[in-house]
């Protein structure tokens, strides 16, 4: 194995728990999280030296790549489901630990783009401008996506908040 991949292996060991957790927030379930993390990391690893030259913070770079992959993957999944008609059945589907959390269930029903905006904002703590740059959309789009998402979440979980929606 080359030195480059030894180094990458160490990086993976250190960052995997955090990335899986982030993927869980992004996708809403452990299976998709594992799938997303593995796919993105393999891609990054095959270019590891190059990626490190390009960015001072590979972890942040990988999280943005995951958000974008999640959004674009969703379109393909929808297409495949349309073709296959049968959604994938997983016999050993584990119980979602958040099954009874209204907010988690509401999040799961958001379109991927809106969910990504929420995760980047409240999980990663990014600003509106940073989210816009991460997702390659305008700040206005981030604002409208976020306010749509917030309105949907409020609506779904009832009024746990009387506060104004400034997003």
């Amino acid at each position, binding site marked *: 194995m080359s030195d480059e991949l030894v180094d990458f292996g160490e990086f993976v060991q250190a960052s995997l728990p955090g990335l899986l957790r982030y993927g869980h927030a992004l996708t809403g379930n452990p299976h998709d999280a594992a799938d997303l993390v593995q796919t993105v990391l393999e891609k990054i690893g095959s270019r590891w030296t190059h990626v490190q030259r*390009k960015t001072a913070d590979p972890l942040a770079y990988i999280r943005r790549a995951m958000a974008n992959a999640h959004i674009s993957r969703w379109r393909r999944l929808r297409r495949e489901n349309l073709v296959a008609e049968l959604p994938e059945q997983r016999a050993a589907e584990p119980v979602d630990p958040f099954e009874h959390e209204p907010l988690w269930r509401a999040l799961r029903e958001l379109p991927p783009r809106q969910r990504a905006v929420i995760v980047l904002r409240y999980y990663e703590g990014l600003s509106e401008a940073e989210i816009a740059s991460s997702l390659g959309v305008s700040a206005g789009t981030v604002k409208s996506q976020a306010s749509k998402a917030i309105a949907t979440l409020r609506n779904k979980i009832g009024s746990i908040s009387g506060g104004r929606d400034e997003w």
Partner: protein
Amino acid sequence: MNHDDELGAELRRLFDDERLAIRPAPEAGDAIVAGARMRRRRRRTLAASGGVLTAAVLVTVGLVVGGPDPVTHEAALPTTVAPSTTTTAPGPVVVPPSFPAEPPPPPTSGAPVPTSEPASPSAPATSGSKTGSSSKVRATTRPAPAITAAVLGPDGYRTLRLGMSFADAKATGMLADADSAPAGCAAYRLTEGTANVANVTISPSGGVVAFTASGARTPENVGAGSTVTELKKAYPDLAAGPGNYSTATGSGDHYTFYVSSDGVVVNWELVAAPDC
């Protein structure tokens, strides 16, 4: 932006929840490294076998370009993790990795967020000197764009237009399997096949909201296989994000280009207001 509203606090609490943790499988790291090695080997094989044949169609010498292996087109290996059932608190903070063997990053990427400025780290190095000295110059295996490629944009494809209602879109006769109106956002294939456009996304409220390109190219002749350099040349106002670039079409819509880590467009979309 009201940072302190209760819903925001609820979201932060949820994202902080220890149950969000997923325990990696013991061999997960090895599987990922093996996958990375396989991708790299395949790319090199492609570059080696394609180098001679494609030398004639190389547009720019000195670009670092690679094989066509988009992240999201890859079949996933069997899942390598099990959901966590532990009740011990996982470390919520990812340990910052260190890179002893790597050169320090360029000063321009010192910002905590790598995409906060146009000279984003997601943009590949394009200067001949830098990439050249790293001995990573490779020939692309992508053929030059066909002059006859179908054009997608700036506001639609053939008679299908962004913003068109489902009924109007259906009336063009271009949608396959368009028996029922979409209940939520749904992707439709075209009756002509998927060679040019992979699918069209229609939302109940916004009508046609996106086209996902396969072989089609923009009116500026950019498409899958184009390099970031070509993108920037075609669209000087290109906005960079990690893994993608976006530009306005001029009519309020956008082209979003998903780019591999080595700077080649792997697929792209024509998107109206992102309803979906």
